[in-house]
């Protein structure tokens, strides 16, 4: 699981062009949106594409997205249970 979390952080930094943020800067339980990494709605869509492209997970229900995109912890947990690739 820790490996997946590190992998996710690196992918998020690259996919969302978080130029001034390093893997070590992202806490596993810190909020990704709002006060955390300060991600916006376009970033949420980009994360949805990332889940589909890299893990074969299609998020179609916005409520599910809101839950799993809370933090690296929640995202990694959801991916580990639902990934198809």
């Amino acid at each position, binding site marked *: 699981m820790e490996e997946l979390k590190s992998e996710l952080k690196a992918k998020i930094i690259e996919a969302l062009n978080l130029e*001034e943020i390093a893997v070590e800067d992202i806490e596993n339980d810190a909020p990704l949106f709002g006060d955390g990494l*300060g991600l916006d709605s376009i970033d949420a869509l980009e994360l949805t594409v990332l889940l*589909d*492209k890299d893990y074969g997970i299609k998020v179609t229900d916005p409520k599910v997205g809101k839950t799993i995109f809370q933090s690296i912890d929640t995202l990694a947990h959801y991916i580990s249970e639902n990934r198809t690739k």
Partner: protein
Amino acid sequence: MERKYHISKHCRIDHHGVLYNGRPLSAEISTEFSIFSKAFYYSLGTTYPKFFKMDNLSKLAWLGAELLLKEELSKNIAIVLSNRSSSYDTDLKHIHTISNTEQYYPSPAIFVYTLPNVCIGEIAIRHHLQTENIFFVSEQFDSQLTVNYCNYLLNSNRAEKVLCGWVEYLEENYKLVLYLVEKTGNLAHDLNVVRQLML
């Protein structure tokens, strides 16, 4: 009675470097826009993480506007920009993300920049401008149109100042010329001067 306006400041960014009011600024000259734009962004000393999420056209426009508007107190500044290639550079990147039917993953972050006037939006957000704006697409900079449009905005009190210019980016070829028009300034706001700036 027709009022006279002036160009208070102007800048130019292209492969030869950066000019501010005709004077060269120290900026890393690189054939790669990604390297140049990043170095120049850091040289401005502004913290604005959204910069790195922009497409190249918006980055170019943002950098030029930062030079001219960073210390502006007025928020009543209209924006009149134009270019030749619209958002085609980003359009091509978007096409690339949807060209493979087996790897069909359109990127929302790319797609949102597939309009040229988005770069005006980025400038407006950065400088808190809720003003008139327009983006023209034409083969060459239309000095007459831009001067007339700018004068109309000022004469009709739709803006106190107008940021005008050319912001062109296509596949590593780029050129920006921006100038700020207002009541006072060292250069007259007329066709000849504007044409000279665009050369």
